């Protein structure tokens, strides 16, 4: 229920959000009644910052929604994505036929088309889906279980992996996610496990499975464990002719004989050997700790050591819940008052681009207009070559300011293919001649609060009738590079 105070608090945003989402008659009606004469009030800072971590950049509508139901309620809602109707994203993604196909059908497609559709779908969902926490976690697990479409058959296998592994389990159970990933042909190809044969083992997947996917590099395993796990995984392969791209266990290539992996004795059992290890790894304390650290880094900040208590609670929740990802997230998202987070996070290129489009209610087809700039910035989806995934550290991304400025200007001057921001929708709320207030409105929309005095002075010359250059200036500002 929306009380009067909340209405007044979010009224300014509501008006703009409503104008921008012409398809939302409820908001339009509310907006008509509540359009304020004054400048937009700043969003409650804690809520705004929390939403910055929980979404790819909150839309006006999401800010209103979260303010109305309260942050904890909004988060609980997001933790149950299947309960959130998502017609806009569904509608946009539906025409992308390749997304629903099996590997053997995809193999007959044109390589460029398959990869382009996968990227488009990913970007469109990040921008338009109302299940934002799901999308944020899909990004997290896509990075965690990184697969590059440039490796071998991954160009079509990744589409299946994205659907059946990452998206299916992103807010489900980590044990199921790990299990699915290990049986995923894309992963087996990406990390060379089809070349892991009895007598000529290839340790690539076995190593990354422990180093990156579960225990972490200091997780207490050694080279002997890698070799033993590789032996368990011999014969885990991918069909190359009939049912091309399906998982297959080839007993003839499997190294029979018992193994010992991280102090667990494994009796000969074919495919079940590595599956036994997966079960041990999934809920191992070192795995829980490794995942907790990565999640805290992603949602809270880079100085993970400062948040030792949250890491500990998050790790415990994973083990105690038997792998429930939602349970693991709650200590970070709910128990920790996210609004208390003092540490800003530098936006990676993907977040910069998507947040620009989301927060301005931009129109995009997810094609070259966004993919080309992302490639230039070094974070085109599914293109990261190494299994560690695009880094969550800020430093390596800071050199790309020019591409960001360029994107801001190109976006706001209508120079991106299939991508634009219809500012006319926002202009309904402009007060003619009050440039300060226009400036503050867009600053509030994009940065959460009014611009600082020096920033206001810098932006003042950019204020014009259509506002596009002003918005470009805010998108290019230091403040918008952080969330």
């Amino acid at each position: 229920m929306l009380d009067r105070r909340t209405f007044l608090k979010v009224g300014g945003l509501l008006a703009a959000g409503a104008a921008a989402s012409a398809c939302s008659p409820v908001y339009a009606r509310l907006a008509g009644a509540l359009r304020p004469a004054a400048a937009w009030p700043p969003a409650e800072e804690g809520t705004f910052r929390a939403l910055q971590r929980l979404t790819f950049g909150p839309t006006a509508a999401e800010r209103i929604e979260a303010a109305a139901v309260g942050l904890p309620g909004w988060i609980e809602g997001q933790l149950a994505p299947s309960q959130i109707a998502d017609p806009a994203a569904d509608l946009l993604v539906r025409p992308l036929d390749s997304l629903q196909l099996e590997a053997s059908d995809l193999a007959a497609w044109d390589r460029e088309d398959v990869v382009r559709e996968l990227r488009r779908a990913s970007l469109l969902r990040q921008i338009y889906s109302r299940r934002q926490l799901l999308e944020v976690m899909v990004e997290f697990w896509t990075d965690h279980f990184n697969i590059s479409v440039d490796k071998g058959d991954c160009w079509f296998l990744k589409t299946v992996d994205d659907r059946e592994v990452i998206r299916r389990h992103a807010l489900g159970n980590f044990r199921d996610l790990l299990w699915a990933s290990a049986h995923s042909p894309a992963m087996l190809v990406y990390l060379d496990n089809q070349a892991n044969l009895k007598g000529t083992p290839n340790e690539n997947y076995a190593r990354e499975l422990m180093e990156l996917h579960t225990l972490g590099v200091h997780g207490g395993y050694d080279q002997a464990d890698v070799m033993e796990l590789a032996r368990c995984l011999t014969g885990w392969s991918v069909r190359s002719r009939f049912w091309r791209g399906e998982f297959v266990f080839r007993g003839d290539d499997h190294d029979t004989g018992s193994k010992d992996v991280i102090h667990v004795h494994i009796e000969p059992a074919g495919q079940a050997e590595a599956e036994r290890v997966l079960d041990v790894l999934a809920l191992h304390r070192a795995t829980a700790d490794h995942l907790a650290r990565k999640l805290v880094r992603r949602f809270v900040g880079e100085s993970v050591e400062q948040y030792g208590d949250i890491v500990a609670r998050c790790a415990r929740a994973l083990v105690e819940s038997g792998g429930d990802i939602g349970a693991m997230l709650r200590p970070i998202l709910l128990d920790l008052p996210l609004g208390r987070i003092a540490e800003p996070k530098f936006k990676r290129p993907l977040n910069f681009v998507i947040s620009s489009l989301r927060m301005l209610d931009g129109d995009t087809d997810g094609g070259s207009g966004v993919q080309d700039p992302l490639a230039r910035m070094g974070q085109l989806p599914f293109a990261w070559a190494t299994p560690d995934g695009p880094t969550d550290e800020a430093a390596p991304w800071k050199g790309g300011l020019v591409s960001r400025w360029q994107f801001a200007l190109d976006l706001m001057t209508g120079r991106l293919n299939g991508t634009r921001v219809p500012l006319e929708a926002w202009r309904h709320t402009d007060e003619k001649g009050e440039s300060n207030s226009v400036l503050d409105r867009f600053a509030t929309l994009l940065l959460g609060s009014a611009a600082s005095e020096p920033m206001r002075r810098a932006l003042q010359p950019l204020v014009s009738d259509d506002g596009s250059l002003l918005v470009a200036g805010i998108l290019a500002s230091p403040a918008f590079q952080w969330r």
Partner: protein
Amino acid sequence: MATTHSRRAFLEALAAAPLAAWAWPSWMPRLAFAPAQQGPRGDVLVVVFLRGAADALNIVVPHGEAAYFRIRPTLAVPRPDDRRPEKALRIIDLDGFFGFHPALAPLLPAWQAGQLAVVHACGAPDESRSHFQAMELMERGLTDLHGPASGWIARHLASLDTGNTSPLRAVGLGDRVQQSLRGSIPVTALRSIADFHLGGDLAAAQALQEALATMYRGEGELQGIGQDTLHILDTLASLDPLAYRPSDGALYPDGDLGMSLRQVAALIKAEVGLEAAAIDVGGWDTHFAQGSSQGLMAGLLDDLAGGLAAFHADLAEEMNRITLVVMTEFGRRAYENASLGTDHGHGGLMFLLGGHVEGGKVHAQWPGLEPEQLFGPGDLAVTVDYRDILAEICLKRLNNPAMDRIFPDFSSTVRGVIREA
């Protein structure tokens, strides 16, 4: 001179200090835009990567090996003294044993000036024959995938604080940043200098740039990078890539490589803080219809030789502070295949171009092409690890002795490819 001396003493002190723990005191002026004689430390490093595994045996041909002509019945380039084809289609002899593919003729001036060297039968220990894995290992400078995820050039730059905060300190030419440049240093992907401006409507770009200059004023790392970036924008604005006139009438070929080398030359001359540039050249995966003196690969070599020759002529004045390396992930099978091409092999080659290169020479511990001398399924063996070459460049030309950081799981051997100072 006193300035030079004190600077050298200072740099020596820097080299002696533990690099990881060393940081510039905050009162030090940034050197990025200091006068030209105080430019970046060591040479500008340019790495040209031939993607797809270039066929070393048909680029610098071991024509002294009878086996070469035997195992490549259709692909062999005709001998230097073979009178049947016209001269322009024959191997250009270099030392009686090795010779250039005829398409490399434009490289002869650099060769004769002693500024171009070849390292043959070199490569990586990796035997995967997988482009993906081999390129990745090579760009990360590792023996196996267990090791730092960053690239070797990034680790070189990260372990050598030259005080250079220019966003153009490391530049990847092309759409994406090369793996070799990825790491804890800022790196700029630059398709072209023409890209490094705000584009579009001139007035709009100008207005935005003025606002940015104000907004990025002040303390903070990002603000610092922003100011440097704006500075570069200004600098490059005067560097109209279309108006850029290469020295000495050097003519860069059309196409990506020529464009990229031309951009790098312009950046070097403009003194914008460039220390390392990476350029990719694709198309070398010649399984099919590779050709001999003429054909698919000859076309690629035309571009490569034309580009390098133009770069050499254009930067004749600057050659003493440049080291350019051409490398590829592995070589190709010594035996030609059934589709007039070659399959994935092992040993490859490198070219080195620069004022301090031990040039005019093919550096090789030649393993031979007789069946018992070939490696694995019939490949040229690797007798020199590519990291020996890169390490020597780092040590002698880039002033960086931090080998344990750049090549953490490798201990290098000096091969004498760089002249002693």
